[in-house]
């Protein structure tokens, strides 16, 4: 099957889907108009008068003079939905009655379905960097906005550099483990955060990267690797992650494997590339690699940066004599 057949099939399907979805779309219902509390947030704050609920008053969501905010409309009920039954039942709590839940609840065991919760947030936040939310990895895996965002907090932890990674690591445990490894990007140190490279709300790039490709993402902070170079190294131009693992590694320089073995995966042209770099042969039978090496005891490829000791322009060279990426 060629790409042509796949694309043709996709667009034939699109025609069908459009027709079907128009049929499936629900028309405007004749539901009764929602009844909001006349005193808006003052009604809610009769009971919900302490932190963390009231922390929302320190956030942009509560700015009543900003016509875009929930508090400019129905305050709490803009997001939690018109909840007259909840308000009415509150008066009976003192009589031992269990209160009726608000129309939309975002956390806890009584939380509303993810789709309902997200619909509330997306009613305002569906533009800009969230344009690609529909169909994104997080959306299709049923991630709720409130799984990551904390609304009733003066500063949402996922929007603060120091606390954002821990929120992401709750699900992305592999990346958290890598961030603790010997070689890592300064994620723990707070200098790089997940959202510097990723757009968790959806993107056209791989693994929710902000840019279209891995390399374009890396070039944002490492423009010296962008070139183009006179002598290119194909895997470096192809994808930085061919050799590097971005979140952390047990090997130096975020490498996926130690040189010369990493290089040997593609370079076995003979001569010095493919000697069996092992514990005895490369070091001489009298040498003990675990001990202090004596002069002349080790192959150059086994020392320091391995092959890169000489081929140090591994990302590309702009020297006329750089064909071997040595200059």
């Amino acid at each position, binding site marked *: 099957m060629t790409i042509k057949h796949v694309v043709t099939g996709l667009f034939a399907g699109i025609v069908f889907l459009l027709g079907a979805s128009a049929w499936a779309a629900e028309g405007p219902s004749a539901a009764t108009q929602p009844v909001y509390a006349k005193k808006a947030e003052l009604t809610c704050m009769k009971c919900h008068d302490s932190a963390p609920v009231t922390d929302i008053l320190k956030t942009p969501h509560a700015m009543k003079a900003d016509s875009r905010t929930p508090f400019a409309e129905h305050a709490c009920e803009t997001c939690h939905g018109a909840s007259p039954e909840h308000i009415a039942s509150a008066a009976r709590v003192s009589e031992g009655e269990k209160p009726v839940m608000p129309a939309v609840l975002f956390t806890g065991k009584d939380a509303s379905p993810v789709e309902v919760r997200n619909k509330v947030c997306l009613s305002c936040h569906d533009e800009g960097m969230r344009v690609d939310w529909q*169909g994104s990895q997080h959306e299709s895996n*049923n991630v709720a906005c409130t799984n990551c965002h904390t609304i009733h907090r003066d500063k949402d932890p996922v929007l603060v550099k120091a606390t954002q990674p821990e929120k992401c690591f709750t699900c992305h445990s592999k990346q958290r483990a890598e961030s603790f490894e010997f070689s890592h990007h300064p994620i723990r140190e707070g200098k790089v955060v997940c959202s510097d490279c990723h757009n968790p709300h959806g993107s056209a790039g791989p693994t929710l990267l902000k840019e279209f490709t891995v390399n374009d993402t890396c070039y944002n902070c490492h423009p010296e690797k962008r070139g183009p170079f006179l002598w290119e190294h194909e895997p470096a131009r192809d994808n930085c992650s061919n050799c590097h693992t971005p979140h952390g590694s047990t090997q130096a320089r975020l490498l996926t494997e130690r040189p010369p073995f990493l290089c040997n995966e593609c370079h076995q042209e003979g001569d010095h590339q493919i000697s069996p770099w092992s514990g005895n042969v490369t070091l001489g039978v009298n040498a003990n690699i675990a001990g202090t090496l004596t002069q002349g005891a080790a192959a150059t490829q086994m020392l320091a940066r391995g092959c890169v000791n000489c081929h140090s322009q591994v990302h590309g060279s702009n020297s006329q004599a750089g064909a071997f990426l040595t200059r």
Partner: protein
Amino acid sequence: MTTKFTLRAAALASTCLLPLAAFAQEAPDYNNEATMGTRFQSSDSALFGRYSGTPFGGFYGTGSFKLDASDAWNSGKTEYFLAEGDNLDVDGHQLFPDAELSVKYGERGKWGIQAFYDGIPYWQSLGFHSLYNSSGALKGLTPGSLPVNSGLSYTPPTADPVTGALSGGATPGELAAGQSFLNGIFAAVSPFNSTQFVGTQRDIVGGSATYMGLANWTFSTGLKHEHKQGTMESSFATNDMNNALAFPEPVDWDTDTYSASARYSTKQLKAVFSYTFSNFNDNLTSFNTLNPFNLSDPSLQLAPGYVGSIYSLPPSNDAHQLKGQVSYLLTPTTRINTDFGYQLMQQNSSNTLAYQGAPANPYLPGGNYNAQIQQMYGNIALNARPLPKTDIRASYSINDREDDSPRVFIPADYGATGQITADTLMSSHVPIANLPISELDQTAKLEAGYHILPSTKVTAFYTYKDQQRDYSVTDRNHESTEGARVNSSLSNTINGMLSYSHSVRSATDYNDNAAWVANTYYLSGLANPAGLGMYYLAARTRDEIKGNLTWSASDALSAGLTGKFYNDHYPTSFYGVTNDHTLSVGPDIAYSPTKSVTTHLFYTFEEVFTDQLASNQNDPSQTAGSTTWSLGNKDTIHTVGASADWQISDKAKISLSENLSYGNTAFAEGASLISAPGSVLPAFPENLVSALPNDTTILNSILLSGEYKLASNVSLLGSYSFDRAVAKDYLYNQPSTAFGNSFGGAGNPADYLEFLPGDGNPSYSIHTVSMAVRVKW
């Protein structure tokens, strides 16, 4: 005053002046705070302080502040002002190396401006050894003063286990003479091998403005300038290719980024258009230096104007990028999204010559390379719910990267007189040319999900990817991936996901070794053995399974388990990577036994395994009876974290955290015959393969911190931490001047000297104690 300090001073001034205006406004109580204190660090370590900019032991001053003069939520106004500063550390060596400062001012929903400064240090070494300084000067060493090493016949002290003969045909006398000769070199070099600090500092300043005054439109623009200065560890091969020497590569870079975007949003149509210009300027073009060893013609290096070894530094370059995103709601349940972009990357720096001065004749005339890559992206996706409970997603994307750079042919007879120059690398008298590598990727995806139960959704997906390449080993890859995923809420408190996919990638191998042959084969005369598959291009099958389970038992207890495993098999690769797999799995538990205590615990197990096979240099023909060697490279990593926070009273709280990462790399090595049943391995020393010792790395950090309120707006902060790194690695057992052997048999004498950085073992054990006072107003 350096640029670095100028930038910092400008950033600090802006953050100090703007608040003055803001203070004139009425501010709510305790919106502002400032923290000042001191910190003691017990010892030096570049690894410990690599990103914090605090590699030195001793006392530091610390500070941070926040000024918030924003209008209150119910004030009827929407102005905001926020200034923040963090990591304002200072010691005897540095001023604010990792400081962060920002100022934001604006009117919500109308306009906003912000400015920021960010310092990012990167310390690489406090014990880097080199014969050079960062400008290329040999530190006290006269060029050409060291003895000639070319032609030295010295082989490693290996003996054939069967015959006892010394490898390389060396005699005991030669070995002794060689060792003596090398000892002489190192004795001569040692006085000039200086210890240096190596590291860089990024200073980033920028600002942006946003305007939302037009209905449905938002306009933004931003400007960022980054200056990066310092040195980084590097090494180069000398012009005679007989030596590799460590040197501190100078870094003096400026990067400017300008961006502008326009967003349009209505209920039905959303669009974002942006333009970004990035300009990278390297204030240096090359690292020019001399070879400390004599060449075959000792007078060469002493010729006026001769620069024997020129190392190219990253060329200045720029990139223009136009991007667009459009999302249109076709029907209430159908949205079509498209992303598209165009990028132009250019580099027109001068070619770095191989060398300068007599008797060199440049391979190419001077001038610029004039390189250019154009990249076009496009993506269109349809997301629909055509039937109740049914979600469909279909997408197509294309990425066309076209390298329009000219092919540069290095001529055969490069010298005007036909003279072979001192650079033996280029003395083959055959033309070679660079490779403008281009690629066209197309991907089509189809995903269909159905709610088999109200809380359970099953999704099937299929992806087809096609990659076409120029000047590559493989001209085309096709990859098909099919799989299924189940997302389910098993109960009100338990959610889970399980996914499996299988992919098959094929590779059309139209010209094995094409890239190598085109630009280096004629120089080396060697090619990869038949059957080598480069892992990122070769045919591959991948099986991947992912899953997670979360349990919100109560408001006080939640637990999660995540896992991921994939296994790759390369069916057509005899050499190279034949198999690899990656596994990560671990739980994450949060528990609050009381309202005042919260705890968190996590553990992750990772295994990264690569199985590879290489041909043995003894018999590159790779026929029956020839030998191979293999490596099973396995990383095993355990990561554990635990933390607890206890609000003891209204006045006091303490926190304790522990994080540990233990990594072990095992090198399982072996040798075997390709195919000769019943045969024994030839008795070459090279066939006595045994595993390298394991490499172990440990990072451990314990932090105890507390806060006590002396008054409602004054707090005392204190912390103690113990950080430990352990590295057990044969790489750290080398002296700062060491050499290796261009490993070979008879007729291939070891004549390669390598001067290493000799950083030593980076392990550390460091205690820090800090005290600070926070005042709020």
